[in-house]
């Protein structure tokens, strides 16, 4: 099984120019079943994103997604490549100049399961067309962070976990997040309630708290221990010692600050709203970065009962699910950067009674 720091020739996109990233050439990694244009797995992720979204060859999804692919989002699952094609076209119709600025691809070789990528993107675009989430065109240029975790086999994404900072996007165009969430919740409450069973199943999985297996010398052991100490044991001070004193923290909806105290504040703000919580680490990956730093990707889920007033309005009593991905930059055994993304709009949609909550 490949170790996290094998294949150093498969480089992170961090610090590389667009010319370098999109240059064509010989393979740098064995990729059986992948199109010859892809030089390594990072290139596959960066280049197919560019080909589909920026070159507008959306139909390439049909050769890059499994026909029955499963896309997991906190707003509900999406199944099948045709749904991916339609959603991509709908998004491009409203935000046609969309740049998917790939900040990093943190990947792992999961053996027979395939290659797994955690792709951090800042989507920069102009809201030129009417859009289901953002509403009527505002002509605002904005950018939010998305992390797409993709399990890939032979040129195709077979399963995807997609987290996007949607609430920040709504605020950037001057939208009303509660109005949107309540409208979504009303629509969720109509029709077949069984279509929300996925959320109940996911909450049950999270409550089982069966973490992904992690070798003690894997870099991800540090952030997993940090979040476990916080969310499971409520030992926030101890947890924060895994961060450098001036660590940079970015959490959803434009929470941006520095230091251990600020990180604790991001967590306790959420934990104060949620009672009876459970937390689970679901997938890890790590890769070397230029200059000796290490990039770590951690996909995790959190569930709890919304009984705390404040962050998300008055207590609703509903059981809430959060699906998140965190990217960390580590130096000298400490975390110097925590970039965490989850869809906070889908959180308040649940609080408003949507998604089967």
């Amino acid at each position, binding site marked *: 099984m490949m170790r996290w720091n094998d294949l150093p020739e498969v480089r992170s996109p961090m610090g590389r120019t667009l010319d370098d990233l999109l240059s064509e050439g010989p393979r740098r990694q064995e990729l059986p079943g992948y199109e010859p244009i892809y030089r390594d797995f990072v290139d596959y992720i960066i280049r197919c994103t560019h080909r589909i979204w920026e070159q507008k060859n959306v139909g390439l999804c049909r050769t890059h997604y499994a026909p029955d692919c499963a896309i997991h989002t906190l707003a509900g699952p999406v199944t099948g490549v045709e749904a991916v094609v339609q959603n991509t076209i709908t998004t491009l119709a409203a935000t046609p100049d969309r740049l998917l600025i790939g900040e990093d691809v943190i990947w792992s070789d999961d053996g027979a399961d395939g290659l797994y990528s955690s792709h951090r993107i800042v989507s920069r675009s102009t809201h030129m067309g009417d859009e289901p989430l953002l509403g009527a065109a505002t002509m605002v240029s904005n950018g939010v962070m998305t992390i797409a975790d993709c399990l890939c086999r032979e040129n195709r994404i077979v399963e995807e976990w997609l987290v996007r900072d949607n609430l920040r996007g709504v605020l950037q165009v001057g939208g009303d997040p509660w109005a949107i969430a309540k409208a979504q919740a009303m629509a969720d409450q109509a029709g077949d309630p069984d279509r929300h069973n996925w959320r109940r199943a996911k909450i049950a999985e999270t409550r089982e708290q069966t973490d992904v297996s992690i070798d003690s010398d894997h870099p991800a052991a540090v952030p997993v221990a940090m979040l476990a100490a916080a969310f499971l044991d409520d030992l926030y001070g101890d947890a924060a010692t895994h961060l450098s004193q001036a660590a940079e923290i970015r959490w959803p909806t434009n*929470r941006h600050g520095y*230091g251990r105290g600020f990180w604790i*504040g991001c967590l306790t703000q959420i934990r104060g709203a949620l009672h009876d919580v459970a937390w689970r680490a679901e997938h890890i990956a790590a890769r070397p970065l230029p200059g000796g730093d290490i990039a770590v990707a951690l996909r995790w889920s959190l569930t709890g009962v919304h009984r705390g007033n404040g962050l998300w309005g008055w207590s609703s009593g509903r059981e809430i699910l959060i699906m998140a991905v965190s990217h960390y930059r580590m130096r000298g055994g400490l975390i110097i950067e925590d970039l965490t993304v989850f869809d906070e709009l889908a959180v308040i949609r649940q609080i408003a009674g949507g998604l089967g909550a």
Partner: protein
Amino acid sequence: MSALETLTALMRGEHPTSGLLHTCRLEGCGNESYGVEAIVENFRALSMGEGTDQIVFEDPAHIAVFAGEEALFADVMDGNIARLWRLGSDDFLTAERGISVSFDPDLAQERQSFFFDPEMHPALSSNAVDKLTRIGQDLARNDGAYRTRVYALRAFGTGDRGAALFAVYRLDGDDERTSGFTHAAAAWGASETHVVHDVAGQTALSVQPWTPHIPV
């Protein structure tokens, strides 16, 4: 283009022909800009440092340009600007809404004004650690806010010449407190230190409502 040439072009409000990574993020003038077009737009809206002598500090991973009361600080990767901070201008662009985070910077009754792990800054010589510590502590002590804490984000150089970028947290105000982060950049020589503050960031903080919940 060299990193300095790239920054100089931006300071003139020009689109650099190269040297600015497509993944670059600019923080300054009270907000953030992603990508080349947005960054160039920011500098076109608010040009800087025209006709002012520049003092430049550089190493393979950083560049800092001090031009009078303004400054630029950048991460450099293979000669390209990877991340950029702009300080000094008192003009601010529209601040973005978000969720305010309540937090305790100290986690202890014994106060610590400056947060700095020297081992996180490999480009800073050991003989500069004490100097940087004094600069950071002075920034906090002389700030005048109710509570000021300073965080060392980037630092490079020696005891005789170097530059650093800080995050500055302030809890301030009289009847109603304001809370948030801005930045400051410092350059030092053998005997003098020059500091530039993120004035626009301070202004932006003062006009933003405190919203520790989903903004309405």
